[in-house]
């Protein structure tokens, strides 16, 4: 639990947008620092446009970062890697995407989708691949595997497709899995099953996760620690239960009060915020949340508060703390 597996230090990622005239940027990630320990599940929670998916894609090396550093198992990986280094990194770090149908090429059978990892990373001799695929399919609960191997993605349900996706990433025995809202497009009845499977792989194989979600309750259920992102910045990070139960940041509190809670009589509670998620092209000055913050004071406009430790391992980016 204590070994640091992945570390992001002050990572910034801006996407240029092409328009006539001056060059402008989408501030997708600003000054993001976080770390994931061996065998830990860190959940990033935030609304769309908060930069959580960009964070995962940056770690997956789908994007290069603008500044800061990313260290994996003690080695910097944010620069350009050789083909071999890249392959090695890819074998260790894998990603599960949100859309279970979009993640599977509709023109290939499950079998030919699942044999790619073995071929790319040279994991098994040709004649063994078939058996390895079967093993892994059983592991993700697709039993009997023969029945599924010949099928095309469109012949499977959403839950089955996501199982195939998990099977594919599991086949390379990764140490870190980036899961980008892996259950949000699934039917409610199957979500917990997939989440439980993810948890189980952590327990059994000591795999670490970066688990991205917009569902606060789900994050609390699955994660050891939670990071709350807003408009490209981390606002609060700490032990899962602490972040939820003692939410310091007004934004975390907002998310909390907005989440559906059947045990509460909602008629009594009203949201205290107005407005939409700010433009990431021209983000608000100072604290990114100040235009919507019910507790904002004049200084909030003027400077970006630093991350402050409010409790043990519980950090908040708010001027009031």
């Amino acid at each position: 639990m204590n070994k640091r597996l992945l570390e992001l230090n002050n990572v910034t990622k801006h996407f240029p947008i092409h328009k006539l005239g001056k060059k402008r940027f989408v501030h997708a990630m600003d000054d993001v620092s976080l770390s994931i320990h061996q065998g830990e599940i860190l959940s990033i929670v935030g609304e769309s446009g908060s930069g959580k998916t960009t964070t995962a894609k940056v770690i997956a090396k789908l994007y290069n970062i603008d500044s800061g550093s990313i260290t994996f198992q003690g080695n910097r990986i944010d620069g350009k890697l050789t083909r071999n280094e890249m392959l090695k990194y890819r074998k260790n770090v894998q990603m599960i995407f949100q859309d279970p149908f979009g993640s599977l090429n509709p023109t290939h059978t499950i079998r030919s989708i699942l044999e790619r990892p073995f071929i790319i990373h040279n994991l098994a001799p040709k004649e063994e691949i078939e058996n390895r695929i079967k093993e892994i399919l059983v592991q993700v609960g697709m039993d009997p595997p023969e029945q599924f191997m010949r099928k095309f993605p469109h012949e499977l349900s959403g839950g089955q497709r996501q199982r195939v996706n998990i099977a594919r990433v599991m086949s390379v025995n990764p140490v870190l899995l980036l899961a980008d809202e892996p259950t949000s497009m699934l039917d409610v009845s199957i979500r917990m099953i997939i989440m439980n499977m993810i948890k189980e792989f952590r327990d059994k194989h000591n795999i670490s996760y970066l688990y991205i979600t917009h569902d606060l309750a789900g994050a609390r259920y699955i994660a050891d620690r939670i990071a709350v992102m807003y408009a490209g910045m981390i606002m609060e990070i700490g032990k899962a239960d602490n972040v939820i139960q003692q939410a310091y940041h007004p934004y975390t509190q907002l998310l909390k009060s907005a989440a559906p809670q059947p045990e509460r009589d909602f008629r009594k509670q009203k949201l205290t915020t107005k407005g939409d998620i700010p433009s990431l092209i021209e983000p608000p000055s100072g604290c990114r949340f100040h235009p919507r913050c019910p507790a904002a004071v004049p200084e909030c406009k003027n400077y970006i508060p630093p991350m402050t430790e409010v409790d043990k391992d519980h950090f908040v980016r708010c001027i009031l703390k």
Partner: protein
Amino acid sequence: MGDIILKLQNLEAGYIIKQGDIKAVDNVNFELKRGEFLGIAGESGCGKSTLAYTIMGLLEDNGRIFNGEILYQDKDLTSMTENELKAIRWQNISMVFQSAMNALNPVMKIGNQLIDTILSHKKDFTKRDAINKSKEMLKLVDITEDRMNAFPHQLSGGMKQRVMIAMAMILEPDIIIMDEPTTALDVVVQRTIIDKISDLRKQFNFSVIFITHDLSLLVEISDKLIIMYSGQIIESGLANKVYNNPLHPYTKGLMNSFPSLTGKLQDFGGIPGKPPNFLKLPGGCRFHTRCPMKQDICSKVAPPLQQINNDHTARCHFVKKGN
């Protein structure tokens, strides 16, 4: 809350496709009172959207109403001509669609899209009246009147959905059907919209049929709850009763699929397997293939929807009256 304004009796509807008939709504009965908030929950493909489209009379060309009645204030919508239906649709029963992104015509100003709704129904309205009414409705959903001249792409997702709510309310209908109106939206936006709907309902006393797969949200906001599975109602009742005392194993499974935000952390399970194909429905109880409590009888005899007590029904062999 008062009189019954909508009553579905033995409604059967669905689609005719090459491989056979699909009865996506199978023998559905319910009553909706004035001012009531009825939640309908179920997985994708349980027939909840088909139900909405059937009530609206908007089924696609291959859609059919096979049997049953939809009684709006004792008038049967299923036996009406398209013209008679037109007089009731939107005027008395309107709808908010799932994807606000695509529900507005991208090349028309939203003001005009509101106005044409009024003008096609209210013959005594002048254009001026319609404009004023539209502005008034936009104000109700917290959109300033200068947005009358905006095009849909200039609005955020939440704003578009609020425009759709204004559009659904503009003729002051008795019933608004909402088909997953907040599914595509972020939690905070979702909450503001839900708040808005509840305010407006208090103010105008219309009934809402709210369709979603998000049971945790539904329990929180509904008066009455209907759980659908494979085209059938498998449990219905007052929302707090269904939440506190779910009877059907499927409902229990659904309840167990939402981890609690602040409550005790326990293991949550979900429901393995997938809903049956409408073309190859299993014999007996439709849920028996996925049911953790299944017995021999379940695959042989289809259970009826039983009245368990005053406000609670369930379709399972193993629930008894007074449970």
